[in-house]
């Protein structure tokens, strides 16, 4: 699954602009929070080139990769699927909020932007993902109930500082 997502991500990034493997790796690290290794990026680029999804141009010592028409079609197909997935998530968020009486607007606005292909958490997504994974790990290790006070204190500190930005 990780391999598939990485491949889509590479295509998506090349759909935005042609670039080298080196800058791809850096950009992907910024948007996902995890910098993929060169060892995983170059085989993907080679595979995509073999499938005719990307083309390679040598620019001095650098290899610049760009997306082909075939690659673009693949990105659009995935994009349509993603759009529909987000539409379903939006409807489900509204349903859930309709039942609980919660305001769906913050969640729905976020999903609408993701659907358009925007990155609403640009610049902070790496840490947002780290925080989410950390909480999941603590929960999995059963450390949440034992450290409730400590964890709540840390979260409230962060919340207080972020609320000042509103």
């Amino acid at each position, binding site marked *: 699954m990780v391999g598939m997502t990485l491949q889509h991500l590479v295509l998506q990034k090349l759909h935005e602009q042609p670039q080298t493997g080196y800058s791809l790796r850096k950009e992907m690290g910024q948007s996902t929070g995890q910098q993929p290794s060169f060892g995983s990026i170059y085989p993907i680029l080679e595979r995509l080139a073999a499938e005719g999804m990307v083309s390679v141009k040598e620019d001095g010592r650098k290899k610049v990769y760009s997306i082909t028409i075939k690659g673009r079609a693949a990105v659009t197909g995935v994009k*349509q699927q993603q759009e529909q997935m987000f539409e379903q998530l939006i409807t489900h968020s*509204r*349903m859930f909020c309709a*039942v*609980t*009486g919660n305001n*769906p607007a913050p969640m729905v606005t976020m999903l609408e932007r993701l659907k358009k292909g925007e990155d609403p958490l640009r610049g902070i997504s790496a840490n947002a993902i780290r925080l989410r994974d950390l909480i999941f790990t603590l929960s999995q290790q059963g450390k949440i109930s034992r450290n409730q006070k400590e964890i709540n204190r840390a979260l409230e500190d962060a919340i207080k500082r972020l609320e000042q930005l509103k």
Partner: protein
Amino acid sequence: MKKAQKNDIIIELQDVWRTYIMGDAKVHALRGINLKVHKGEFVAIMGPSGSGKSTAMNMVGCLDIPTKGKVLLDGQNISSLHESDLAQIRGRKIGFIFQKFNLINTLSAKENIMLPMIFQGMPENERHDRAENLLKLVDLQDRADHRPNELSGGQQQRVAIARSLAVEPEVILADEPTGNLDSKTGASVMDFLKKLHNEKGTTIIMVTHDEHVARNAQRIEMLKDGEIIATKHK
């Protein structure tokens, strides 16, 4: 805008289309639906699976926006509303009984019913009083502290009905309200809905694939392949 209310239409669908794109193909889940629901009506939208029932239900409940056409809630075009305003109007006017989003398992029956009241900012005393009255209405006053998994299917659905009434909605929207129930329990749930309609004048819109269930309504709209193919009045 207020003038639109004088003809008593609470929800209106005008030539509503909902289209999904699957690869190169366009799939029309709804093909130009027209529907008017008047205040105090009991309407069933009936059709086999894949007929567009769920999509229609999402439109009627203002949970999805049409690809083409208009959905008017109390005369207001929902496409022109901001998400939070729409949620507020939806929250005040419509009570939902969903098949899939049922009760929250970690909360008691009473807490489930009180949940929408908390978000509406109702004072605590009032919340308890109201929830107890609603539990009485659905005949579950002795199950207030039970968790959903300690209740039978029919009892759970009655808690869901009580919760949908928490904010005194004008319309109840029920998606296959008897879907997971045996026919006897289903009939008693339907009796509750009919009682609400008869005694409180609540507008009820129900989506179902079951003709026996649909017959409880005053009007049946038959849906097939995304179109209303017939309307039956009682």
